[in-house]
């Protein structure tokens, strides 16, 4: 499957439009202000994004969405990454919307309509240990009368403390099943954790939580039919966000190299720093290709997109980490201060590295697809 790896005119326009909006509404100082106020979410900002069609970026037009596709979702995520915009975009508009889209029944369609309208937010509860592995699930959903009884604990549920609903992966008799639950249901206790990136992530305990057959997304025992596409969409968009993050940290660093003076000259005159900056630029550029490719394949041949998505997430993880490490080092002491924004980039890069599979997880996937 060969795809065109050039940004289409409407994608360039979308990026410009997103950039213009986010520079104004959500620069890094916005995240800083939220953190200083002890908050992780700005409902007014999300409402504005929903009005612009971002909440419904993957929702069909019949359900009130803008249905722009995965490459477009990546464009938005990439622009968000540049200024570390915090929003339920990935959890709700990308991951939950993609899962619900696989189902396509009346209930799922109603949920999609509420996502597009910005009326509901979701979080994905998969992890039960410190490393992502959707097959390593011990949480149980035991059959109980006509329904299920869920017991277990999830960790690193991104956006989980504030989300209205939870997509929960649990073990059923013959396999894994994905549930769409009210986050306020009896037996759900949410423990918001103080995360290094100042965003929402929770540990959630489920104690005899009741679910009905209608709460199951897709088929019982076949969670992956619905979850796999949702994870891929989320991984690709997260990779796009991290590429944006890398580009943002890189731009700050290059600006600094041009203005900071030592030994009587701009430090950007020193070849030792020039070559490090140039290498970093190359890595950002190469990573952008992997992002574009993943979005194209998710749109045109989703069944063939798995390797492209893992390649994008692996490469973006590596590049974002390089960008923030080089960013702090080339800034020197000021890069270590909380007053300067680079630290925010570093912390988000670490969180993004772990979410939905780290470098090792995705490089391993690539290797398997490449036959080793």
């Amino acid at each position, binding site marked *: 499957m060969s795809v065109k790896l050039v940004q289409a005119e409407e994608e360039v326009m979308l990026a410009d439009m997103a950039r213009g909006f986010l520079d104004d509404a959500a620069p890094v100082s916005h995240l800083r202000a939220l953190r200083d106020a002890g908050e992780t979410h700005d409902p007014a900002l999300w409402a504005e994004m929903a009005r612009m069609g971002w909440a419904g970026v993957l929702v069909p037009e019949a359900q009130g969405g803008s249905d722009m596709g995965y490459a477009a979702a990546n464009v938005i995520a990439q622009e968000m990454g540049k200024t570390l915009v915090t929003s339920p975009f990935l959890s709700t508009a990308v991951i939950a919307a993609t899962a619900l889209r696989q189902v396509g029944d009346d209930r799922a369609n109603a949920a999609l309509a509420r996502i597009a309208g910005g009326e509901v937010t979701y979080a994905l509860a998969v992890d039960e240990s410190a490393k992502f592995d959707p097959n390593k699930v011990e949480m149980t959903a035991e059959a109980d009368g006509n329904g299920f009884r869920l017991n277990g604990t999830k960790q690193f549920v991104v956006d989980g403390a504030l989300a209205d609903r939870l997509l929960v992966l649990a073990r059923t008799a013959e396999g894994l099943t994905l549930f769409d639950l009210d986050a306020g249901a009896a037996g759900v206790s949410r423990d918001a954790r103080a995360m290094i990136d100042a965003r929402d992530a929770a540990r959630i305990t489920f104690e005899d939580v009741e679910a009905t057959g209608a709460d199951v997304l897709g088929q019982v025992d076949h969670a992956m039919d619905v979850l796999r596409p949702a994870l891929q969409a989320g991984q690709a968009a997260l990779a796009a966000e991290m590429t944006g993050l890398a580009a943002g940290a890189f731009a700050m660093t*290059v600006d600094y190299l041009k203005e900071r003076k030592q030994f009587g000259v701009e430090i950007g005159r020193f070849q030792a720093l020039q*070559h490090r*900056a140039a290498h970093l*630029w190359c890595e950002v550029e190469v990573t952008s290709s992997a992002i574009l490719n993943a979005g194209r394949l998710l749109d045109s041949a989703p069944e063939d997109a798995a390797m492209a998505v893992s390649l994008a997430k692996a490469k973006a993880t590596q590049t974002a980490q390089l960008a923030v490490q080089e960013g702090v080092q080339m800034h020197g002491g000021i890069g270590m201060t909380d007053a300067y924004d680079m630290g925010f980039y570093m912390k988000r890069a670490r969180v993004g590295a772990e979410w939905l599979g780290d470098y090792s997880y995705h490089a391993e996937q690539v290797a398997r697809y490449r036959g080793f």
Partner: protein
Amino acid sequence: MTDTMTDFRKDLRDWLEAYCPAEMRDGAASEETICWGGKDWVFSSDAQREWLNACVAEGYTVPTWPKEYGGAGLNRDQQKIFDEEIARIGARFPLQSFGIWMLGPALLHFGTHEQKLHYLPPIARGEVRWCQGYSEPGAGSDLASVQTFGADAGDHWVVNGQKIWTSYADKADWIFALVRTDREAPKHKGISFLLIDMNDPGVETRPIKLISGASPFCETFFTDVKVPKEQIVGDVNRGWDVAKYLLTHEREMISGSGMLQAGGRPLGAVLAEGDAGLEDATLRAAAMRCEVDQLAMGLTLERYRDMAEAGQGAGDASAMLKYLGTELNKQRHELMMMAGGSDALEWGDRPADWLRTKANSIEGGTSEVMLSIISRRVLGLPA
């Protein structure tokens, strides 16, 4: 459009099935298996000759060149399909040469119609083999300081000087060379791009033995060589423009060469053949990393080609392709040597190829020169 492409693919498949000899379908791309062409070329097999002749007849040695100059006039979409179909059956390149990679693109861009008609078809047919005369003992990374001098003698120049690292000069029929034609002008503004017959009196060449045991590079000496005034590409003293344009091409070519190594096979598959296999966790982890980087690099090459077709030239950003492509190729060969263990220490293709890759990040501008180009011209950092 899509239907036309499907037809093109189908026709091409049929044609390959009929004309690509079985022996030419092993994806080989080593020094021993390349067909370079030229007046003195000796085919390594009948199959190699048949494959070249079949491709020449269709213009497939230079598929994107216009038909009148010996190509097949393929557009970008067709070329992609062509590359895919060639890769699918693992067909060898029918012909490779500096004429195809470098002089051809330079002539297509800067040459007159007469020059194109005169020089390009023999390149496409593999009849004339070219070499490149750029570097000199005193002009390596600082290429614009070449001193080989062409003295104006009316209807010709009289060229004197020495070139080094002239690849396969001992086997080439002609050389394209950077020659200083004005010593008073600033160094970039006094160079001309001249075409010189290697059989002319006064041209001598001597191979240099390298660490790989091979001698792909030569020293080439010019002593009072007469070069007619029409054997120039571009304007007098504007050879640097041609050279810069060509260096961009060369960078793209070298960066792509990593993909061609071992027929573009996944690194894991190559490594699994060694005694160490992929049970060595350290080796496997390094291979995974290299594979990720190589795949992303391949997509970047594709993206830059797609951008070029959409009219967005890469310009100085091509330095990135050259820098990362060659560094990755070196990594790949280091891993192959690790996987081979002591088996790979006995002289053969693997160690020779491994040693050869060390030149990738030097020839055509070192990695450090590439990084400097990016930092100044792309990032705008002060010189």
